[in-house]
């Protein structure tokens, strides 16, 4: 597995891409903070020089400014200038604060958006071998809630942490520059506040987690009860359910209250610290002013500085200790991104290779788990334009054959050739581009039927769409819906029957007009008359199209040029219907059952009939 060394790799890369935005926001916050500092400083100067009429504490550039507005007297006569300066400094500070937020939001949101896009694209490029065994719920969680955690981390925590750090970096030196004694009085408890918050939230993490879990359990109980409400009723267990719920409800509410109590200790104690800090400044500073160690204006300004510093620093402790949550999420996202994508290594054939549909398997042996082969030594040859039916019991390896052809999985032993070219050397997309397939499970997207059918060929005209729907015997069904091809399916729309779904997916595939068409037991939910009708239509129009049909229906097999019988991963018989029914074996047994020639069935029909 990847070590933590790689943990933040992708994130670092994405952040680096937006580095100018991030740097710009740091610069803006610096400027904004400086102007924020000026507001109490202006008050200080006015109080000292103008109102109090004392020389005040060290001056320098302030004196120069005052001279500009006509010296102390001039300022006293036009005190509105000072008032305006406060508003002006706040305005500039606000503007830069907004600029910082804008730049930071742009940077963070771009990072998150790019990560989302990258994950989505990456998922589509993962090999089927990985996707087939992965837990899709877990993948979904990594793509959604872990991304959310990360977004929260970037937009809230990093932004706040950054702002507070810059606040400290700018305020503390300036404060010390103004008055060392007052700085000590207004800052001495702040490190304690910070560490208190940091340690407290580090320790309380477990309780937070317990509360989350208790809430999850409560939700599960309700969800399970509502999902199984018919069972609850069937056994008249309402009382029992209420007791189960009661226990979880009580537990959650008690735990949460415990958490609130802990928090009440934190907030009150940290408030005690913060207010004590203000008190120290008030009394200690008051003594200094009364004894003329510092000026009244400086005293006033420090009261303002402390307020601006102390609350964000308390927040900082909390945010730092909660930031660790995000590192877990980043790790989980990185893990998915580290899964290698499907590659086209060894694909030497040109990307635009056109296939005609000649297929050849030579001694192909394959297993999803190499120790347990699903296909043993398969040899077969399919010619351009042939219609082939493949029959066999469940688990005989029919679908695996198709997965190999589509390059969803790669074979290791033996050889598969298409038009005489080794399949492994043809790029995956080229292969898939030329084979029209319907997977066993028809999958439709929650969109309109038109969009679903044109899903694989966006440029198709409506005429072409209707044509393929006719061939798939679904056009009339669709026209029967009140909104026709505009009917939206899925959760928020119409739900189609299994057979309807299968025919829509068939229409979707037919519309693509690929040289090779594979139907993997695709029409099982369609009644056999319709299926035969469809296959006849396909067979008639086939031209150069090679057609492979996996089916259980004898009526379909009859339409085929050739039938391949597969059992236990082996090709056990092949030939035309007429010759296969003459040999004892799977095909003949199946035929006997379906045509009512089965002996047991015959004996049932002989059972008594009323006179």
């Amino acid at each position, binding site marked *: 597995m990847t070590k933590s060394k790689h943990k933040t790799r992708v994130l670092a890369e994405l952040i680096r891409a937006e580095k100018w935005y991030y740097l710009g926001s740091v610069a803006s916050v610096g400027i904004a903070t400086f102007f924020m500092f000026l507001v109490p400083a202006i008050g200080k100067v006015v109080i000292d020089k103008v109102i109090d009429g004392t020389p005040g504490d060290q001056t320098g550039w302030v004196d120069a400014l005052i001279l500009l507005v006509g010296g102390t007297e001039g300022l006293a006569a036009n005190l509105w200038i000072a008032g305006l300066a406060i508003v002006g400094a706040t305005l500039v500070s606000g503007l830069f604060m907004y600029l910082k937020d804008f730049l930071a939001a742009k940077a963070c949101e771009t990072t998150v958006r790019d990560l989302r896009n990258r994950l989505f694209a990456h998922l589509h490029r993962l090999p089927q071998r990985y996707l087939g065994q992965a837990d899709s719920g877990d993948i979904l969680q990594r793509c959604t809630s872990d991304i959310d955690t990360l977004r929260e981390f970037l937009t809230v925590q990093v932004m706040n942490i950054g702002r507070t750090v810059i606040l400290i970096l700018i305020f503390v030196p300036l404060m010390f520059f103004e008055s060392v004694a007052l700085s000590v009085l207004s800052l001495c408890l702040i490190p304690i506040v910070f560490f208190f918050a940091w340690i407290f939230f580090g320790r309380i993490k477990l309780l937070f987690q317990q509360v989350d879990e208790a809430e999850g359990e409560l939700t599960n109980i309700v969800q399970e009860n509502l999902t199984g409400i018919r069972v609850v009723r069937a056994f008249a267990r309402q009382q029992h359910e209420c007791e189960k719920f009661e226990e979880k409800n009580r537990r959650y509410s008690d735990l949460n209250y415990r958490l609130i109590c802990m928090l009440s200790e934190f907030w009150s104690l940290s408030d005690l610290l913060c207010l004590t800090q203000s008190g120290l400044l*008030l009394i200690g500073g008051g003594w200094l002013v009364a004894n003329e160690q510092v000026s009244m204006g400086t005293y006033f300004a420090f009261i303002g500085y402390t307020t601006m510093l102390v609350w964000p620093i308390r927040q900082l402790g909390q945010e730092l200790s909660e930031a660790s949550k995000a590192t877990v999420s980043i790790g989980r996202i990185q893990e998915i991104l580290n899964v290698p994508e499907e590659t086209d290594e060894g694909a030497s054939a040109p990307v635009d290779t056109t296939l005609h549909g000649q297929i050849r398997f030579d001694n192909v042996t394959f297993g999803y788990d190499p120790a347990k082969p699903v296909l043993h030594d398969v040899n077969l040859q399919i010619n351009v334009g042939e219609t082939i039916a493949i029959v066999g019991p469940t688990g005989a390896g029919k679908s695996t054959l198709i997965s190999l052809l589509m390059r969803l999985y790669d074979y290791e032993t033996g050889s598969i050739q298409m038009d005489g070219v080794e399949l492994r050397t043809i790029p995956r997309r080229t292969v898939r581009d030329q084979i029209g397939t319907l*997977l066993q499970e028809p999958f439709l997207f929650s969109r309109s039927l038109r969009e679903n059918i044109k899903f694989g060929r966006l440029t198709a005209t409506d005429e072409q769409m209707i044509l393929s729907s006719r061939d798939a015997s679904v056009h009339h069904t669709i026209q029967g819906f009140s909104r026709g091809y505009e009917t939206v399916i899925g959760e928020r729309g119409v739900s189609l029957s299994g057979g309807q779904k299968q025919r829509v997916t068939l229409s979707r595939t037919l519309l693509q007009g690929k040289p090779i068409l594979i139907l993997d037991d695709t029409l099982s939910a369609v009644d056999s008359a319709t299926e035969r009708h469809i296959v006849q239509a396909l067979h008639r129009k086939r031209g150069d199209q090679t057609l492979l049909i996996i089916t259980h229906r004898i009526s379909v097999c009859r339409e085929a040029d050739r039938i391949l019988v597969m059992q236990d991963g082996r090709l056990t018989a092949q030939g035309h219907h007429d010759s296969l029914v003459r040999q004892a074996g799977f095909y003949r047994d199946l035929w006997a059952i379906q045509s009512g020639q089965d002996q047991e069935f015959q004996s049932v029909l002989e059972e008594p009939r009323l006179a």
Partner: protein
Amino acid sequence: MDTLNSTPAQKGAWKRLFLMAYGPNKALFHRLIIVALVTAGMEASLTLITKAVVDDIQALGPQINLMKYALLYIAVLVTVVVCIRSFIRLAGRLSMNLMYDLRKQSFEHLQSLSFSFFDKNAVGWLLARVTSDTARIARIVAWGTLDLFWGVPLILGVFVVLLILDFKLGLIVLALSPFLAAIAWWFNKRILTSSRQVRRTNSRLTAVYNEGIAGIPTSKVLVREDKNLSEFREDSKTMYHQSMYNLLLSSAFFPFVNIFVSISTGIALWLGGVEVIAGALTLGTLIAFMTYSRTLMDPMLEVSEQLAELQRTTACVERVIGLLQVEPEIVDSAAVQARMQEVRDTGAETLDGGPGVIRDIAFSHVSFSYKPEEPVLNDFSLNVKAGSTVALVGATGSGKTTVVSLLCRFYEPTAGEILINGESYLNRSLSWLQSNLGIVLQTPFLFTGTVASNIRYGKLDATDEEVIEAARAVNVHDIIMKMEKGYDTEIQEGGNNLSTGQKQLISFARAVIGNPQILVMDEATSSVDTQTEHLLQRSLQSVLRDRTSFVIAHRLSTIRSADNIVVIDKGALVEQGSHSELLALRGRYFDLYQKQFQSEREQELLNEHH
């Protein structure tokens, strides 16, 4: 109507909620309000201490008695800290009590509602009412109360102090504050709306991801990856813009407020400064003015946020109160309830005083429809003798399930009667009937918990021996013993760690452990492996023996062994009799039977190598 999704605004929902919340929590509310008021008073007075210190410094210089102020400050500080600690606890207690009560009431109320209600309301929708709506309501009621009773008095208190300190200057600060309130209100409303939109888009993204992941193989074979991605990019771009907007709105909010505050600080400095120079105002008062204009900001922001949130929560309150007001459709009649009262302490054989043994059951001209215009069952009549097995057969949607749902009184007939021992079952109590039923549903639903606790669900006080006996009766004992922890094996959510066949067998055991007089079963259609199939059939025989049973049957062996086979088509009974009688008729049953026979033989052949 039963559906809540479209309920119009419930009139007086807030009032009902308030009565519900206030009643049991009077003391908490009162204490919270008192603490909030004290906190507000103390916070307002902190600045006054600063003012006094400054004035004393000016007046007395080094002779100032700072000790007095230090003690005063400590007293205020301690009070504030104690208040903060207790209002967090009080509001926490209050919100937990409320959440607990609302959840308890809505959950328990849901348990009493009829099947038809659950047909119309999706699980996810109801879940959100019980969990997130209640949490939101509890939060706003408790913390909203606190903020209101802290914020409003604090604002008013500061105004009063300012007016007393300097009337003219006070009026100016006061005149500016409505602008501040308006800005806060304007922003809060927009921020809430925009946050909601972000959440909605976010769940849409989740849905897109969900579908995207499920559809990857399809996208691959259709070579649609690029187009998928570019569509996804559109969605993530929407999310990007909305989150940007949301963030920018929040970031504009604070500077705006700050500028307004600085305007009043600036004016205080200007006009107050002039007065101080003229000697009309003390420096302490000027500093107090400049500090107070900032003190006002916090309560104003808090109050306006809570007000905006309050407005948003109205929909939640309406939904939860609406849910609590839905009346269950199927309840014991007044007469039955009265009789149950009467016989409660008489030691009668049954809860409602009626006979305990079920001899025969009859459907007499029963009709039923879920929606008036679509009749599901039409004039359906059937007599069932005690101890016999009835197999219901027919196409999907023919009305088989409705027959058994009516029998279980999950729904009641719209016309006609169902008779037990010759008496309409509406004259018996629901709990009596349902406690005599054992029901096996088509898709076996198991609860999280152990295997044993799932079997025990059919009889809560069953001993371990009884659980094992029930498991043996349905031939699942050996299977359970082979599991890692036997009867203590934990069943995961949805029973995902068991095979379908195992789940079916366990749900059999659950149905028979209470030894019900009537067994109702919807036979599973999903195919299971041959060995489990064999076990299922054997256990079915033992379960059905000598018990009045209704089986919605799909398998030939079940159908053949029934005493009476009832063929239903489009809500009407079309044929009934024994297997050989019906076969001889060469009618509907004969056709069904042939088809089923062929398909079972075919399944056997296709699965023979497993």
